[in-house]
């Protein structure tokens, strides 16, 4: 009874928010409705006893993917009214895609309906294991480890491809190399000199020209030329 109510509640909100995703005027609202849709899908998973899938849906899609989505959409400065003008032109294509998907779904469900025995012919039987976390792990990491690894490699290649396409060498930015900072010792940077009275230090020895950031490599500055501490000189003068 409660399960029924929960199912219809989740399903109704899911469909309504999915409709709002495509019809909301503000793209940020669209993404927020998408997040609501993910949540309700997670709720439906939970009702079916697929607790692991529900949590992973929330963690991966809501917690990571949708955040980046929202991040990008909030920063976009696109005139969405202009974008919407093509909607009449592209609506038939969208409708055809939707119809095809719907037909495929009908066929899948129809087969189950007309021939319940077909589910026994599946290559991978639904494991009747204790918890579905363990069952999924068994399927993915024991029986289909090769396919799973290949899928992971495909994603890795896609990721490296995206990085290679967008990587550009920024010669102007000054990177902090923490290892070098830590490796520096006072001897590298400080030098104590005792200066003759009224003689001072020749300016050239401590006032080094600052590296021109445009001309020189950013790694080159700083630690070559030691600063000179003239504290000793002041000390002597006071006496």
């Amino acid at each position, binding site marked *: 009874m409660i399960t029924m109510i929960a199912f219809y509640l989740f399903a109704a909100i899911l469909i309504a928010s999915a409709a709002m995703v495509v019809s909301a005027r503000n793209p*940020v609202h669209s993404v*927020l409705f998408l*997040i609501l849709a993910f949540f309700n899908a997670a709720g439906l998973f939970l009702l079916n006893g697929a*607790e*692991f899938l529900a*949590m*992973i849906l*929330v*963690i991966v899609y*809501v*917690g*990571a993917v949708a*955040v*980046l989505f*929202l*991040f990008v959409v*909030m*920063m976009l400065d696109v005139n969405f009214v202009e974008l919407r003008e093509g909607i009449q032109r592209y609506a038939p294509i969208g409708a055809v895609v939707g119809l095809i998907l719907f037909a495929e779904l009908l066929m899948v469900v129809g087969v189950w309906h007309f021939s319940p025995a077909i589910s026994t012919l599946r290559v991978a039987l639904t494991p009747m294991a*204790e*918890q579905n*976390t*363990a069952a999924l792990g068994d399927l993915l990491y024991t029986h289909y480890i090769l396919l799973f690894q290949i899928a992971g490699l495909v994603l890795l290649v896609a990721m490296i491809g995206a990085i290679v396409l967008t990587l550009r060498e920024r010669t102007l930015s000054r990177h*902090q190399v*923490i290892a070098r900072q830590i490796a520096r010792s006072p001897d590298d940077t400080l030098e104590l000199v005792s200066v003759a009275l009224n003689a001072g230090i020749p300016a050239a020895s401590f006032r080094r020209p600052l590296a021109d950031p445009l001309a020189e490599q950013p790694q080159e500055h700083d630690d070559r030329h030691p600063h000179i501490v003239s504290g000793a000189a002041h000390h002597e003068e006071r006496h």
Partner: protein
Amino acid sequence: MAAFFQTPLGILLLMILEALAILVPLLLGVAYATYAERKILAAIQLRKGPNVVGWFGLLQAFADAGKMLMKETIIPTGANRILFLLAPMITFVLAMIAWAVIPVNDGWAIAKINVGVLYLFAISSLGVYGIIIAGWASNSKYAFLGALRSAAQMVSYEVSIGFVMVSVLLCVGSLNLNDIVLAQRHVWFFIPLFPMFIVFFISGLAETNRSPFDLPEGESEIVAGFFVEYSAMAFALFFLGEYANMFLMSAMTSILFLGGWLAPFGIAPFTWLPGPIWFILKILLCMFVFIWVRGTFPRYRYDQLMRLGWKVFLPLSLFWLILTAGFLMATGLLPQGAA
């Protein structure tokens, strides 16, 4: 009486009572956490801290809450009203609902679900929405900058938190929080997994936007970051949410690494104290370190924050995960199935 609690009304009443039993102490704890923070910071800086309202300033938290209630809620023009008011509620509610799965003693959790760790991970990764929605709906530059910073920061540190959790799960063989604590009967996980414990705690600081990773607030550069436009109760909800999240992170640290409700060593003088007391003591210890860190370290620069997350913690936690898995396989200690 027992029969009454079997009826639907009784079950509902029981659920409400269970929720209150954990939320009321939590909110009281949050109120005194703000007081404790001010006192500890004051002690670090050789000041007195709040000492006027009540004995030793003990009623300061309630005076602050009363003040917040009296103030006017200001909604800036150009702000998205619904989202503007929704954001603090999301922050607060998310900080509360995570406590449904926290086991206070053996089997003492409101919801004993099998994927407890994943639930906690999911809820804590949702915390970013309150901040990002607040920043966007305020229609203010500073708020927006704070929101973008926090989005990047929380997504980055979640990754290493995930790896740390997986390496703990490898040692337990179950996603159930109760099993995780029981698996630490012999040795608390912070001893064998010490680097992971440190990574988890520091990532927890970043995940709760606490100093030295409080760049989303960053008073010195972006005023107060994402909640610069908030006032009165909406502001108070953010504040409560932040402290409740600190408590949650402390509770997660004590469950994953410090043996939850288990007494240290499991021997006589320690076992006289009941489990929940030990659990609370461990949470308070973590809270103290949270505040201590705030009093000690300067704020990170943004590029240093990103470097720490992606170039230090991510490789380290991944390496340690593989090491843990390899060690467990090689020694045959790998737990099989649910404990």
